[in-house]
């Protein structure tokens, strides 16, 4: 799999997954509503909201990737991806991330009980309930701020991709992983906000299955990187550590 294909796959997963997001985040997007200053202002408002969300995703990705890097190379020296062989730590990380993603995918198919309790973190539930005050606030800063917080709200989809980002064991690939995923969620969410039309449940269900399949595939690939004996970089085909 080439790097471009890999990121395209992530984009697709994000796109399909955003039909899942519509349930929760789509509601937020609709609530952001219309700006009285016209169509352009409304679009800007939603763009800023999504930009805030994307920033959070990218940050989480970069951070998770850096964390993976720290775990894999305790000395903080050269990234091990260059050296050809995946060391034991990176394999372990891949196994953990892969398992997590597969669990998330199974949850998407309704085959696993919801892990939501796990997701509701310390203090975030209070945050979620009070974020509504931002939705109705005027000005352009409010949607941006709202998007930033929105990105941190518990969501299995995001967790799955953060796990994937961590397994890349590099700040940059981690960032790119989450960026592709975040951009994938852009179209549906933008459409949601500006059109304000909720998709038919049947379509949403199809989207959720598609997203589940993408995540499952990615999870299996990631798991394979950890388990399979050959040192080939199945998901990271770029030469020199980063995609061109």
């Amino acid at each position, binding site marked *: 799999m080439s790097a471009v294909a890999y990121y395209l796959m992530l984009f697709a997963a994000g796109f399909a997954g955003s039909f899942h997001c519509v349930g929760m985040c789509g509601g937020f997007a609709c609530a952001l509503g219309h700006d009285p200053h016209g169509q352009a202002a409304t679009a800007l408002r939603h763009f800023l909201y999504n930009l*805030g969300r994307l*920033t*959070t995703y*990218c*940050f989480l990705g*970069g*951070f998770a990737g*850096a964390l993976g890097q720290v775990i894999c190379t305790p000395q903080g020296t050269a990234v091990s991806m260059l050296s050809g062989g995946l060391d034991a730590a990176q394999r372990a990380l891949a196994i953990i991330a892969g398992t997590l993603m597969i669990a998330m995918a199974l949850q998407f198919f309704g085959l696993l009980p919801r892990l939501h309790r796990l997701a509701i973190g*310390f*203090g975030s539930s*209070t*945050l979620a309930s*009070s*974020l*509504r*005050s*931002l*939705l*109705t*606030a005027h*000005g352009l*800063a*409010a949607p*941006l*701020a*709202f*998007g*930033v*917080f929105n990105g941190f709200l518990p969501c299995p989809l995001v967790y799955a991709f953060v796990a994937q980002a961590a397994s890349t064991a*590099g*700040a*940059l690939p981690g*960032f790119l992983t989450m960026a592709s995923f975040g951009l994938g969620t852009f179209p549906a969410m933008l459409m949601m906000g500006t059109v304000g039309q909720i998709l038919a449940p049947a379509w949403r269900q199809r989207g959720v299955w598609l997203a589940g399949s993408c995540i499952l595939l990615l999870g299996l690939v990631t798991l394979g990187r950890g388990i399979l004996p050959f040192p080939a970089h199945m998901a990271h085909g770029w030469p020199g550590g*980063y995609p061109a």
Partner: protein
Amino acid sequence: MNGRGGILCSHCLLPVGVRATQRTVNGESHAFCCYGCCIAFQVKNGKSEEWEAAWLLIRLGVGGFLSMNIMLFSLLLYAGAFTGVDARLLPWIHLLLWVFATPAVIILGGPFCAETWRDARDGQVTSSALIVLGVGAAYLYSAFAVIEHSPHVYFDTATMVLMLFTVGRYLEAAGRARAARNLEPLLAAESEWATVVESGAESRRPVREVSVGALVRVRPGERIPLDGAVLEGESHADEAVITGESRLVPKEVGSHVIAGSINMDGPLLIRSTCTGADTRWAQICRLVRDALTRRTPTQRLADRVVGIFVPLVLSLGGLTALYWMQWLPFDRALLNALSVLVIACPCAVGLAAPLATSLGIGRLARRGCLVREPGALEELARTGLLAFDKTGTLTSGRARVVRIETDDVVADEVLARAAGLERHSEHSFGHVITAAATARGLAPLVAGNVRILPGRGIRGNADGQAVMAGNRALMSELGWSVAPTLRERARSLEADGYSVIYVGWGEHVCGALALDDAALPEARSTIEALRGRGLQVILLSGDLAHATQRVAVAAGIENAQSGLSPEAKRAALRRLRQRYGVVAMVGDGLNDGPVLAEADIGIAVGSATDLARETAAMVLPRGGLWMLPWVVDVARAVRMTILTNLLWAFGYNLIALTLAVLGLLQPVFAAAVMAGSSILVVLNSLRLERMPDPVRTPSSGGAEAQSTADPFPVLPVAAIEQG
């Protein structure tokens, strides 16, 4: 400035201290102990119409957006994305970072700056000064670096430190609010509202404006705002906060309801019997508020340490910079100094004691156990000896018929005749005797022509015979005959400290009832449980030796001293203190106020209704003796938590500080560890919430059942005297 000392933080209910943050939320003025609580409270309670609440979130969100972007670009820089061909882009990237960082530093650092400025005006240097100085230095250096085209900028460090501290404070405050949950019902008395029914219409009014006799409606799930009597409705009430009673108490028309209890399942209409300020709930509220604002000795020590810590760290930071400048470039030395400043914020130290103490107070208060002196919890945990008063503490304070001596008649007949007379008596012994007859299932023998002889007894006629029940004076006054054996046994009972009531009919004294204030059924198991916790137990009584000894035996106390005047009790406590260190005295709080005050910790059990006059450091609810072992457990857990908190806070500070001085710690990492450390203290303290509720030991329940089945545990006198 001192006026603020008694104010509690609106969010976490810890005392705000002298430097409170004042803010108006939803039209009401609130005081907060810290920036974190200010954020968390507004996030939680701010209405969407309120610009300020939204504004705060917007600032945090935009700050987050900017700092995350800075971090992302910096990560790319560190990963070497702008080397080689792209190197010419470097100055522009730096400039972009500067553009992002300037508003971020202003937005996120503003509150810290304001705090520093406020403290500085009071002549104080606190932890926020460390942050401001460190971040300011990093920012200014980086700004110069951009102008000078230096290869390194540290905008990411500056903004991430601010972001981490802000998020850390928010999470810490959110955790502290959980700690306050137990206390909330106790502090609500003053701000409670009542639904008053007046001429058919209902209106909501603050409790302090509701007069005596007003009709108040209480819906299911609501807290009953006033003491009163039920006029309409049936329900159950949860009175645990006031009485410690964990069972639901059924309420019907005519029942008395207590302010502060929760109406569980049916609407009630009550007529208030007292004003809002006079209820026990309001008293408890004032008492808890007082206790929370008082500082414990540990807390004062921690405050003093923090006071000298900050200037110390500032100079240490300066020295670190000076030292490293000899070996490293200026920017690296500056970073090392920044790590020192950031890592040494003594937030966790300041939080260690008050949080655990307020959790302990809340935990106890949920079961009706009140702590007036917060330091008492730590003292109780250290105590080696508990001294008990007898009457009203280990005993119920009410006499019971414990023995019946007879002269050729059945004991039940003596009791039935006595009860027939005593039904007409108002004397407390009268109630005791009728109760004993009822407990045995005896019908009192109906007596007529009953006359009460004040100070001596009672007489009347039954079955055509004169019947009398009274003390020895009455017996000799009447000149009725007594069998010598009965006279002897009765005399010996009197000598043993029993109250003896002679019962006679047909001009002959046929029996004698021995009344005694026996040990409470739960006394034995409670003492055993305390001993199981490694505590010494002693009984200090003002009563006669025999009476004291009897209770001591029943309760399983080996060491008992009797015939002590209050002064002698205090002297005894002083002696015991020399041997055991910290001593606690458990009394009923009525007669032994001075003795309780003499002990290191005075614990009143089931004491006077007027809490305001209470002198004991801790007050257990009526009949709450059995909770004492649990109270000791909670006190020990609180002390343990404080110690582990302090150990962690100091230990981590020392180790991390050493690493920072040696230049082994990145500032961002230091900030993360720092924020994590306060949260760890909060989490460690929150473990106190999970302490189990007190359980009545099976043995105490068993003893209770036994005592109701057999109200006359006839102890052979010889066994009593042998002790």
